[in-house]
């Protein structure tokens, strides 16, 4: 596995704003994007969320897109972020023809399906509404995003719930290392839907206040939405194009907790193994890690076991860590790439983003970074993404050293 993989482009949209610049500004100001839910028709307005502050029609107008894209929020969000990623990596249409597009999503076109399902199910299947259900499948969403960008050589979709985007990044890196492609546009997109808002509510893990990851009194998740994509590139390709290198994707690992569909094992076995294996690939020791962008959902279960896993690796002193989900909300399938872009911004601008909303320690020596903190010497960052079923992925971004 000697081949190196670089990040040469990034794009993001979330409750923190549209684009890298707006996101950086919000992070530096420590401004949270959590607020009242408006974009979906739900009675559960008691749960705050991290919404992108634009309606589907506003986004469609700005992006200049029509049917069916204009009715698929995941796709609209995806196009915003992916377009920015391509521009920032100066990718020409010609380069896309040999590139891969890999996107993570679980919701896909569920927003459309849930709008049409009742009519189709209650009345009859012969209505036009049933045709709209074609877009339910995750692959359609990914293809619509890809086709809005240009002509890719290959397109596919990873779907592992809240680690989907992280796993899209991992496949992209593996394809580059195998020499199958030189460039992969990877990440994820996920819109809020009534389906998964209610789904998470059945698990009784949604917080009615701004979520407080790693706080003793944390009581659950704020859901969020958004999209982010990275442009991954082989060394050969990046150097021949003389494109700016944002970071090196120095290590990554995907493991399974293999414990329960929704609960995590007590000692965080999956998370422990994922971080350890990622460091092994990056040839880094625990002391080399300057910051961990934790999965940190704010549920009692996740944060406790993620902390337990970190403490198994860093037995003396934990590195600086924070969860940015109290700023963006838990953007589920997109969180792996949204938080990757946040890590890239931290690496490029020399700071650690704060874990907003945190007040009470769980125990001694286990406190996250609360306010954003300058860290000019930051070199290596771990980004954790854990999904249902114990799908645990860790990704390491390192400062580029030629």
């Amino acid at each position, binding site marked *: 596995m000697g081949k190196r993989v670089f990040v040469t482009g990034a794009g993001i949209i979330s409750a923190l704003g549209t684009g890298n610049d707006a996101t950086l500004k919000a992070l530096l100001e420590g401004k949270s994007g959590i607020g009242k839910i408006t974009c979906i028709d739900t009675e559960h307005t008691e749960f705050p969320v991290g919404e992108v502050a634009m309606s589907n029609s506003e986004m469609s107008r700005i992006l200049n897109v029509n049917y069916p894209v204009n009715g698929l929020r995941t796709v609209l969000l995806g196009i915003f972020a992916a377009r920015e990623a391509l521009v920032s990596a100066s990718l020409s249409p010609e380069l896309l023809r040999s590139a891969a597009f890999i996107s993570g999503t679980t919701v896909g076109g569920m927003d459309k399906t849930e709008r049409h399902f009742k009519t189709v199910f209650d009345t009859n299947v012969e209505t036009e509404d049933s045709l709209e259900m074609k877009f339910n499948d995750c692959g359609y969403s990914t293809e619509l995003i890809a086709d809005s960008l240009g002509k890719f050589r290959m397109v596919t979709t990873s779907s592992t719930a809240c680690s989907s985007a992280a796993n899209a990044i991992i496949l992209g890196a593996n394809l580059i290392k195998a020499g199958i492609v030189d460039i992969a546009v990877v990440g994820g997109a996920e819109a809020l839907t009534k389906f998964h808002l209610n789904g998470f509510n*059945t698990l*009784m893990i949604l917080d009615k206040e701004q979520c407080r990851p790693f706080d003793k009194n944390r009581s659950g998740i704020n859901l969020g939405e958004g999209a982010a994509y990275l442009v991954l590139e082989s060394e050969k390709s990046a150097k021949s194009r003389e494109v700016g290198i944002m970071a090196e994707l120095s290590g990554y690992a995907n493991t399974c907790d293999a414990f*329960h569909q929704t609960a995590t094992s007590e000692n965080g076995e999956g998370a422990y193994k994922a971080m350890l294996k990622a460091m092994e690939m990056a040839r880094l020791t625990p002391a080399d890690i300057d910051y961990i962008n934790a999965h940190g959902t704010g549920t009692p279960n996740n944060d406790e076991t993620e902390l337990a896993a970190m403490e198994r690796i860093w037995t003396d002193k934990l590195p600086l860590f924070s969860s940015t989900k109290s700023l963006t909300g838990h953007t589920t399938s997109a969180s792996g790439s949204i938080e990757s872009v946040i890590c890239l911004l931290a690496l490029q601008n020399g700071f650690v983003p704060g874990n907003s909303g945190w007040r009470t320690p769980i125990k001694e020596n286990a406190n996250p970074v609360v306010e954003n903190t300058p860290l000019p010497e930051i070199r290596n960052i771990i980004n954790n993404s854990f999904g249902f079923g114990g799908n645990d992925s860790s990704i390491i971004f390192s400062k580029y050293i030629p």
Partner: protein
Amino acid sequence: MDNLILQLKNQIIEVLNLEDMTADDIATDAPLFGEGLGLDSIDALELIVLLEREYGIKLSNPAEGKQIFSSVASIADFVSKNRKK
């Protein structure tokens, strides 16, 4: 009370898909979780849904369920005191 207990046992078998069990297989005072039927946290959430759908009782904190769901007898006791339908 006996009718309610039998009804609850059948409802528990149905919502938790305890396929090979009958009401007679569940002892009224035996613990449902841990050592008992081997139920987990998701089953506890399913029982919360059962109380709301069938008896109009709303539990907003899963921790409240711990005591209530310790046995069929304790559920029956709680239901008979709090049921809205």
